[in-house]
């Protein structure tokens, strides 16, 4: 008699585990034990990982960043009390779907800024409110808006490390000479987002 033998006689239906997982998601949330809920959604720029705390949307990650790597980073920096729990992300998932199908010009969800500090936080806050759908800003202009006109390079870093891309629209920030500049999701994703927002 080995472990494997008795285990084989006691099969576990994956549906039972799914049901129990859903119950755990609900109860953890009710008990205030779920520090981070996450899910993955499909989009025009590939699968997006969405992660939220009870305070709001914490992270949007492109597939190129490696979703597992991002989750482990969140476990370390914020909290390992994380579950794949779609319900708390229903609103942002729906709004992203509307955005990608051209039916939404701005997002209306609470944001958790825990991953951004100091000047970067200020830059991204400006970006979230001041650069509208379908418009561009140069890194220099965003530096001016952020109150530090000479901190153009620091603005570039803030955009490049934006933890909440798409919703905080760093894709709308381009170089003063009109070229795109770098992007967390890669140049193809940046181009796709700018094309999506271009007036037809």
């Amino acid at each position, binding site marked *: 008699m080995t*472990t494997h033998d008795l285990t084989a006689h006691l099969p576990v239906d994956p549906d039972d*585990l799914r049901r129990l997982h859903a119950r755990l998601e609900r109860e953890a949330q009710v008990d205030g034990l779920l520090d981070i809920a996450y899910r993955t959604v499909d989009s025009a720029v590939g699968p997006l990982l969405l992660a939220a705390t009870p305070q709001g949307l914490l992270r949007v990650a492109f597939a190129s960043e490696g979703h597992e790597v991002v989750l482990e980073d969140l476990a370390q920096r914020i909290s390992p009390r994380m*579950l794949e729990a779609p319900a708390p992300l229903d609103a942002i998932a729906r709004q992203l779907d509307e955005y990608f199908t051209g039916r939404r010009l701005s997002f209306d969800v609470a944001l958790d800024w825990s991953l951004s500090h100091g000047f970067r936080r200020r830059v991204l806050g400006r970006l979230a409110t001041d650069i509208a759908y379908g418009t561009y800003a140069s890194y220099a202009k965003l530096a001016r808006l952020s109150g530090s006109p000479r901190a153009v390079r620091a603005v570039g870093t803030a955009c490049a490390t934006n933890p909440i891309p798409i919703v905080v629209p760093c894709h709308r920030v381009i170089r003063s000479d009109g070229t795109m500049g770098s992007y967390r999701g890669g140049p193809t994703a940046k181009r796709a987002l700018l094309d999506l927002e271009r007036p037809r």
Partner: protein
Amino acid sequence: MKRERYFKRPFEAVVAQHGATVLRVVRAVVGHADADDAWSDTFLAALKAYQQLPADANIEAWLVTIAHRKAIDMTRAASRRAIPVADAPDAPARERADAHDLDLDAAVGALPPKQRQAVAYHYLAGLPYAEIAVILDSSVAAARRAAADGIATLRRTYPRIDTPKESS
């Protein structure tokens, strides 16, 4: 500010890796009817305590220890509200839908609690007897004997246990 130097995986990974094993263990220990509650209580308590768990801890042993305590709590609560239930506990249609072997469930359920626990923790969770002795608050020899006696009884009451079965 003290920063933890070790690395802890997202709790989701713990559920994904150990969820099925914990379900088998609690089904064996408290029975199918109460297994869902025991599983949920176990993982909620684990989630609550997860940040305090040392990073090098044996997660499976930790989960089984929590499940063991939850099962004891549930057994105590059940004996306090020991009012017989009127309806049959298992309608035939449900047994088939669950696709679990009622004879094996009955055979495991008929074992004395210590044997049932030792069998579950060793043969289903794969814990060494040294860990099981701590959980059962007994000697290592007693834990080993309880599991051996339990398996010997199961071989008698459920002979098919020695028939190799494709794992599913």
